[in-house]
């Protein structure tokens, strides 16, 4: 565009609007671009944090899926296994001192360890759980007594850490958890192919332990399972009933108004307050047992109900009135209309809402700390009333442990938890996509 098209009488005196706009245009366009970049930068930062978080956890945790093990040729010495003054053989085998079998084998392997200190260092190479492993083997197969068998036993967590490169062998001996003597022994084990990393089965099959190499997530996973199943069984029917009542049947009056406001507010109450409620009501007032999934699922039910109700109402709202009118016109009662026609159509939306609610409940920690699910529990729970812990709480407990080996186990447990969360959210998205319907 040229200036000629816009004749202006006093062009010489002062700049026209057009000139001002022309002059500022470059600046404005730059501002526009900058603004766009800020926006994109915001999103990029958010996504970068997400990637950083996942990468950090994965980098810290992937090593936990392997565990260093040592191959020992164990002589199941009848003198050790059958000498105790028990009544029968079975009892003798179950009470025998399996630790000394391990010690004997280690001493044979490294005869140079003489002094008490040296022997102590030597025995420290092997996990204290190894003797339980031997005991289990013998109890399963009594014929092992008197034979020599090579067994892979878990190494101690410090050896494990050294082997995975988390302990630097160049550091001064006094600053290192594995001393020079032990290093030499480990190197010899390596030379003899007696030490290897194997898949860490214990991590998935055992409960919590003070020894990192024996600690697993099975107990916490079962606790999470019981808690979640209970939460779903309670919160889904109650949530659906509430949503149906409020959306389809409730008269508009003070009471229903109060209920609505209440539900919206409860959805935003901090979770730890629900923990206080659980502690004061369910444990102190009703006397339910502490640290159990049953109290956990009651608390989580109250916490997730608002989410489920709000999602349920939204999906009921999206069912067009014509469906209801047609059913009513055919002579169905209001209840039949809802249960035979409206609810099946709204069900996918309700399920999606509850799965998202369950995913949130799965990751919840704070209220469960209040009701005592932080206890150190080794046994794997089998019912709703047995003391147990849940995955996020297990992560919290392990994150507090000083041993280096717990860092990788914590990260690994986080990975397991995140996988479950992604699966649940994926299922919700799948359901939404599969059953999404536009009327």
């Amino acid at each position, binding site marked *: 565009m040229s200036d000629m098209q816009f004749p202006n009488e006093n062009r010489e005196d002062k700049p026209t609007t057009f000139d001002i706009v022309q002059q500022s245009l470059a600046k404005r366009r730059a501002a*526009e671009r900058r603004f766009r970049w800020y926006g*994109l930068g915001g999103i990029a930062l958010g996504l970068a944090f997400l990637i950083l978080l996942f990468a950090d956890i994965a980098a810290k945790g992937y090593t936990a899926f392997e565990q260093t093990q040592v191959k020992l040729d164990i002589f199941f010495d009848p003198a050790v296994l059958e000498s105790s003054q028990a009544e029968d053989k079975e009892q003798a085998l179950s009470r025998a001192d399996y630790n000394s079998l391990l010690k004997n084998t280690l001493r044979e392997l490294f005869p140079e360890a003489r002094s008490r200190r040296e022997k102590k260092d030597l025995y420290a190479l092997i996990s204290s759980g190894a003797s339980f492993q031997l005991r289990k083997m013998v109890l399963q197969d009594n014929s092992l007594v008197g034979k020599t068998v090579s067994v892979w036993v878990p190494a101690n967590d410090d050896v494990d850490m050294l082997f995975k490169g988390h302990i630097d062998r160049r550091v001064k001996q006094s600053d290192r958890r594995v001393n020079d003597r032990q290093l030499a022994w480990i190197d010899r084990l390596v030379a003899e192919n007696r030490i290897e990393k194997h898949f860490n089965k214990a991590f998935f099959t055992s409960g919590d332990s003070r020894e990192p190499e024996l600690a697993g997530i099975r107990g916490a996973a079962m606790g999470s399972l019981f808690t979640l199943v209970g939460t779903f069984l309670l919160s889904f029917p109650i949530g659906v009933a509430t949503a149906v009542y409020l959306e389809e049947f409730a008269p508009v009056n003070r009471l229903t108004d109060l209920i609505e406001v209440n539900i919206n507010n409860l959805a935003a109450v901090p979770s730890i307050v629900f923990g206080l409620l659980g502690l*004061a009501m369910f444990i102190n007032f009703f006397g339910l047992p502490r640290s159990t999934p049953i109290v956990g699922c009651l608390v989580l039910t109250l916490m997730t109900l608002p989410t489920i109700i709000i999602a349920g109402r939204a999906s009921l709202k999206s069912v067009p009135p014509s469906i209801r009118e047609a059913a009513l016109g055919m002579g169905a009662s209001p209840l039949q209309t809802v249960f035979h026609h409206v609810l099946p159509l709204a069900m996918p939306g309700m399920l999606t809402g509850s799965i998202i609610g369950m995913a949130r409940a799965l990751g919840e920690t704070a209220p469960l700390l209040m009701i005592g699910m932080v206890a150190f529990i080794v046994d794997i729970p089998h019912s709703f009333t047995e003391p147990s812990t849940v995955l996020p709480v297990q992560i919290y407990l392990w994150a507090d442990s000083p041993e280096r080996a717990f860092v990788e186990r914590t990260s690994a447990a986080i990975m397991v938890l995140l996988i479950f969360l992604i699966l649940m959210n994926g299922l919700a998205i799948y359901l939404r996509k599969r059953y999404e319907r536009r009327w």
Partner: protein
Amino acid sequence: MPPSILLIVLLLLSYAGYQIGKRRSLASVDGKIRELHSLPGFYGLYSALWSIIPALIVTVVWLSLETAWVSGNVISTLPEEMRELSNSRLYLVLNDIKNVVNGVTVATQTDPVILEAAQHYKHLQQLSHILLSVVAITFSLAGIWFSSQRIDKNHRARNAVEKAMDVLMMICSTIAIFTTIGIVFSVLFESIRFFKAVPITDFLFGLEWSPQTAMRSDQVGSSGAFGAIPLFTGTLLVSLIAMLVAVPIGLMSAIYLSEFASPRFRATAKPTLEILAGIPTVVYGFFAALTVAPIIRQTGEYLGFSVSSESALAAGLVMGVMIIPFVSSLSDDVMNAVPQSLRDGAYALGATQAETIRQVIFPAALPGIVGSILLAVSRAIGETMILVMAAGLAANLTFNPFEAVTTVTVQIVTLLVGDQEFDSPKTLAAFALGLVLFIATLILNVFALYIVRKYREQYE
């Protein structure tokens, strides 16, 4: 039989009731369904409901009274000197007994009196369960009998069943109210007990927080300080840092998503950002404590600051990341709700897209954005795990983000996790803090929801 098996038996009985009711209705008209008032299934449901509801009510009432009755009975059989203990001590003894009963404590290691009491407790509990089973099953059978007596072709079973379902749904919907009442009562009562021991003014305006109380009354330094100001400042400091991270990033993302982004980009970026809000907070806590805090400390030392290993900055930064989606998603929704005509008007006047956003859309959406930020603030105040793991426990009255601070939620957790007595100010203080937290977040939420809702209605 234990309550879980009783429940299964009751469910089976109610299924039997369903079948009986259905058969009976069909029999009453010789199989001619047209002559029945309701469909046969309704007669079945009618019987099933009569069979299970009264029995369930009895069971629930019985079980909720059982513990008190059994405990009272066990206490009355305890030796004289135990019965005269103070209430709190008695509670501990009772707890020991329960632990033995539940198999938490190994029986061989406990004192014989407790062991005997535990035996008695177990015996009474079994007796109670047997009685309960008999009573509940009687109720169930009586319900089936009663309902089947009433079934004939003119009986309005459908109306009765629908009425019952209506009532059932209504009861379900009042659970939200009961939850709120439960929260208020449970924190209020304990807080009142706390304020009897510690004056409310000391709690709200005191500058020192050291919740140590003596186990014995003659112990030195037995009185703790319960001034909550350091906790409030700590909470505010961390929330402020979190908001400084979340608000700019969240707002810019929201603007880009709602105004600039292509539909395809938006469809992937928005849910991906929302993953941040779905990650469990323990994971953030672990990340803050093990990755972010050391980085901050090293950078701080490099620049010559002294940074403590647990700092408000680390916790706040990570919490800010967690909160980004709360700001971005809600603001995005609000900006999307601004009518297109406003944008078109601005473009027609020659404004660039950025100018339109800054001068038209942003002001129009401002109330909603403020509402979303307030919701994010209330989320930050109530957040627990990140702070427990990364912010520290030291109740410093400071605004220095490099120092460790403690917050209301962290103190609630530390006061209540572990062994505790429920009549020392130390544990009761947690409930007082809970009350403050509940009130603060409630006010923020109500205000935020009010703003968001009021604004949204403007264009509808």
